C-alpha cells in the first residue's frame, strides 16, 4: 500500500486547516452559500436530499485494518453508525453535520485518507479490480498502475476543471471485474505475443442517462508511455469536450460524436507532440511491487489456489422466484460440496 511521505502529511493537514477556516467563515456568514459551495465540493461534501453527504476516496479499493477501523469510528462518532461503500470504491457518509466535517477530515488524515477530488469536474478516485493481487487470471497487479495514476492526477493543475467529471479504472486481468468498459478511460493490463506487458486503453465508456461501452483507442501501450498517453487523451477532451450542456459534456459523448477513428487521430497527434517532454515511467517503478504480488507461494496458499481454481458459482432464480447463488467446490482431496 502507498504510504504518505512527509509532504503528503503536511499537504493534507494544510487542506483540512483551510477547510476548517472555510466552514467557520460559512457558519459565521462571512461566506455565502454560492461562495462556499465550490469549496465544500472540492472537499467531497455535498448537500443532498436529506442531509449533507461526505464522499471519501478509497484509492483502488485498498484499505488497511487501521483505516477501516477509523472509517467505523467516524461513522459512530459523527454519523448514524454506518457508511455506504460505493461501486466506485468510495465510502459515503450520509448524515454528517457541516460543523463536524473538519474534524472528520482530520480523522481521515490521521490514517492517510481524504475526500479530495471525490466531487467536481476533475479526475476522480481511480478504481481497480476488487480481487487485485489475488486473482488467478491476473497478468499483473493493477494497483501499481492505479497508484501511478493517483499520484499523477492528484491536484493536477491542467485537469482540475475539465468539461465534466472523469473516471478511470484499471484491471490486471482479461475479465473486466473493474468495469473498465464503462469508464471514461479504462485500462487493461495485457501481454503481447513477445511476452512484453503493457496496457490496452479504452476510452469513452460510461453509464448514467447515456450508457456507452468504451472503445479501444490503443490495443497495446508500452508501460512507460502510460502518463503521456493519458495526458494526450485528457488534453483532447479538455479542448473539444462540450461545456455548454452538462448532459453532453462527458468524454463518451465526444468520442461518440466524432467517432473513435477521428478521436484516436487527434489523441495520437497530441501524443506525438508531447511525448518527448512528458514524464516517462521508468520500468522499475511501474512494475509489480515484489512485496505485493510476488509473495512466495506457501504450502497453504498452493492448496487454497487449487481449491479456488475449481470453485464454480451459479447465479440463478429459485423456484420461489428469489435470486439464488450456488457455489460448488470440487477438490480431488475432498468430496464435492455445494453451498446455497
Amino acid at each position, binding site marked *: 500500500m502507498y504510504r504518505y511521505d512527509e509532504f503528503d502529511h503536511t499537504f493534507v493537514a494544510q487542506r483540512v486547516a483551510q477547510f476548517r477556516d472555510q466552514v467557520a467563515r*460559512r*457558519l*459565521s*456568514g462571512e461566506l455565502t*452559500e454560492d461562495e462556499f*459551495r465550490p469549496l465544500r465540493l472540492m472537499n467531497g461534501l*455535498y*448537500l*443532498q*436530499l*436529506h*442531509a*449533507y453527504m461526505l464522499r471519501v476516496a478509497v484509492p483502488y479499493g485498498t484499505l488497511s485494518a487501521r483505516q477501516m477501523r477509523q472509517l467505523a469510528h467516524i461513522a459512530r462518532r459523527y454519523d*448514524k453508525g454506518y457508511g455506504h461503500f460505493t461501486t466506485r470504491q468510495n465510502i459515503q457518509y*450520509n*448524515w*454528517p*453535520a*457541516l*460543523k463536524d466535517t473538519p474534524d472528520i477530515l482530520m480523522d481521515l488524515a490521521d490514517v492517510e485518507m481524504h475526500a479530495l477530488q471525490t466531487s467536481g469536474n476533475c479526475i476522480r478516485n481511480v478504481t481497480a479490480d476488487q480481487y487485485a493481487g489475488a486473482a488467478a487470471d491476473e497478468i499483473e497487479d493493477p494497483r501499481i498502475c492505479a497508484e501511478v495514476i493517483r499520484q499523477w492526477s492528484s491536484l493536477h493543475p491542467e485537469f482540475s476543471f475539465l468539461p465534466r467529471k472523469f473516471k478511470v479504472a484499471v484491471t490486471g486481468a482479461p475479465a473486466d471485474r473493474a468495469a473498465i468498459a464503462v469508464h471514461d478511460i479504462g485500462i487493461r493490463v495485457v501481454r503481447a505475443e513477445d511476452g512484453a506487458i503493457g496496457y490496452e486503453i479504452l476510452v469513452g465508456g460510461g453509464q448514467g442517462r447515456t450508457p456507452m461501452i468504451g472503445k479501444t483507442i490503443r490495443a497495446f501501450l508500452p508501460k512507460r508511455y502510460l502518463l503521456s498517453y493519458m495526458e494526450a487523451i485528457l488534453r483532447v477532451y479538455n479542448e473539444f469536450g462540450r461545456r455548454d450542456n452538462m448532459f453532453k459534456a462527458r468524454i463518451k459523448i465526444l468520442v461518440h460524436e466524432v467517432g473513435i477513428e477521428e478521436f484516436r487521430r487527434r489523441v495520437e497527434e497530441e501524443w506525438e507532440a508531447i511525448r518527448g517532454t512528458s514524464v516517462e515511467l521508468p520500468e522499475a517503478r511501474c512494475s509489480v511491487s515484489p512485496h505485493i504480488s510476488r509473495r512466495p507461494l506457501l504450502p497453504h496458499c498452493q492448496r487454497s489456489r487449487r481449491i479456488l481454481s475449481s470453485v464454480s458459482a451459479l447465479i440463478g432464480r429459485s423456484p420461489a422466484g428469489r435470486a439464488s447463488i450456488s457455489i460448488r467446490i470440487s477438490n480431488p482431496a475432498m468430496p464435492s460440496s455445494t453451498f446455497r
Partner: protein
Amino acid sequence: MSETESKSGKRTTEEGVLAISTARGARGGALKAITANRLVDGVVVYLGEGGGWVEAIEAARSVSGKDEAAALLASVEPDVAACRIVGPYLIDVVAGSDGKLRGASERERIRALGPTVRLDLGKQAEA
C-alpha cells in the same frame, strides 16, 4: 442547494394530476409551503406557523395564491442571511384525509420522511 435538485422534473401526484415539480416555482393555485436545509447540519426544515423553522412538514405554514407564496418566500431571506437555512424554495403541499399537510410530489414526500431504502433512518424513524 442540493446537487440532485436539478434532476427534478414532472411528477405524478397521488390524485393523478400531473404536476410540475415544485423545486423551483410551483403552480399558481396550489397550496404552498417553504422548505430549506438547516445550514449547520443539513436537516430538511419547513417554515412553521410561528415564523420559526420546524422539522415536520405537518407543522409547516401553508398559503395559497401566487403573490402570497412569493411574499412568503421573500420573508425568509433574513434567515438565509443569518446562516440559519440554505436554499429555501416553494413546494406544493396537500392536506391528507386526516387534515395533515404533506408534500404533493413524490420527491418532497421522500424528503419529508427519509430514505426509502432505510426506513429506520430519517424522520420516518422518529415518528
